[in-house]
């Protein structure tokens, strides 16, 4: 890979890194939001088969190499006193019926729709162990196991699942995750439901701020590098030509 292409690749990945940081900061107030982490691919990936007998073999592709993974750690629980706010404490996702099948979310600011169905703020039905949950009023009681009571009558238990390999959960927006075909989903065991609480985003603004400074400065340094290389070419063309 030539020098200019390498610098460009570095600057491109800075732009993508800033993209990830800005997404995290924009969602500081989004319930149940999980922050994204920018991952830069190892230098070895640039090379054909790594280091071999003929030395380093660069592929020559000047493409940005930032990918993202989701930080699945729990966000702080916030007391809201609203009986329809439910937070999952521990590992697990609530299951909702999305148009394409099941989706998973930790965004527990729930609502009741006109037919008495328990739905997410986006209007998708929240699933219990026996399907959609129907209530007669807007103040159900939900215990730690996720049992939903309508008055004193047990209606259903909220389904809470987890993915043994969290990387198979793909974000689809609106706080929802979809499961990639290859991944398996199992019933969660290690969790507690908290009624009247919401889970805040797990974004730490100071951390993102520092990453942002780092990114902007790296971008600046790359620019200086490009200018330095430009100077070098300039000298090569003009000074060598005088000889």
């Amino acid at each position, binding site marked *: 890979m030539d020098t200019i292409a390498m610098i460009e690749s570095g*600057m491109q990945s*800075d*732009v*993508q890194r*800033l*993209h*990830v*940081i*800005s*997404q995290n*900061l*924009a*969602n*500081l*107030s*989004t*319930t149940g*939001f999980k922050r*994204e982490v920018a991952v830069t691919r190892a230098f070895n*990936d640039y090379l054909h088969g790594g280091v071999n007998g003929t030395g380093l073999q660069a*592929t020559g*592709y000047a*493409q*940005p*190499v*930032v*990918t*993202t993974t989701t930080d699945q750690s729990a966000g702080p629980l916030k007391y809201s006193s*609203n009986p*329809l706010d439910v937070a999952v404490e521990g590992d697990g996702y609530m299951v909702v019926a999305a148009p394409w099948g099941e989706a998973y979310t930790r*965004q527990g*600011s729930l*609502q*009741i*729709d*006109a*037919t*008495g169905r328990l739905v997410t*703020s*986006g209007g998708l039905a929240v699933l219990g162990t026996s399907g959609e949950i129907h209530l*007669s*009023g*807007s*103040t159900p009681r939900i215990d730690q196991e996720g049992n939903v009571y309508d008055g004193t009558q047990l209606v259903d238990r909220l389904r809470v699942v987890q993915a043994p390999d969290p990387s198979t959960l*793909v*974000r*689809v*927006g*609106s*706080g929802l995750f979809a499961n990639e075909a290859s991944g398996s989903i199992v019933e969660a065991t290690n969790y507690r439901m908290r009624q009247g609480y919401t889970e805040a985003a797990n974004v730490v*603004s100071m951390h993102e*701020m520092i990453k*942002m400074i780092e*990114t*902007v400065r790296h*971008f*600046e340094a790359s*620019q200086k590098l*490009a*200018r330095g290389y430009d100077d070098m070419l300039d000298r090569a063309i003009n000074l060598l030509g005088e000889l």
Partner: protein
Amino acid sequence: MLDSLYIGASGMQAQQQNVDAISNNLANVNTAGYKRSRIDFEDLLYRAVPSGRDSSGQFAATGRMGMGTAMAGSSKVFTVGDAKKTAEPLDLAINGQGFFEIALPDGSVAYTRNGAFRLDQDGMLVNQDGYALVGAIQVPPESTQVRIDSVGRVTATLTGQRDPVELGQIHLANFTNPAGLTAVGDNLFQATDRAGEPIIGNPGENGTGGLAQGYLEGSNVRLIDEMVSLILAQRAYEINAKVVQASDELLSISNNLYR
């Protein structure tokens, strides 16, 4: 051009709506029967971005990047506010769920939790804006004491009479999904498809609470919570402005690549 610029802007926009809702809650902290609004946010669509080429030289779309944040919806929180004693005989608080029905001049019905009623020139029970309570309850001028019991029965003692006479019955409406009601101002709500059909009954039936005469329901705004939210919203706005600034810097630096 630079997605982070727009994402930062979406964050600022969302926080501004958040501050709007908080300030409206704070302004109505002393409004009887006011229900606080809350705003939910959601992350916007993720799209796959080509994040490099794999060993065979193909673009590998493994990176997924979000496109910012947006308001998912604003809803009213219908938790019951504290009942405050006023000793006014026509002040009513609902001890639980339910809404008073108010007949609007255009013939439609609106719903309210504000139970500060008074009499108009004809002795009709009306709300603070002069709209009649559904049920057309008329209090005769010669009555000395009006009593409203917990199940909504209105009686009055008339001068010169020993036994109170019955004047009417107050009904309450309940909804499957009160959060789906539309607030139309003046402390009134209108029924919508999202809220479901109103279920009308006597106070204490259909999951509604009983009436308490001489009390008014305070707003359910909690000052400390709103102040904390306001501080957070302001700081979140600030940090999103920094994102816009950083994106601007990136653009400026890349513009200065060429001297």
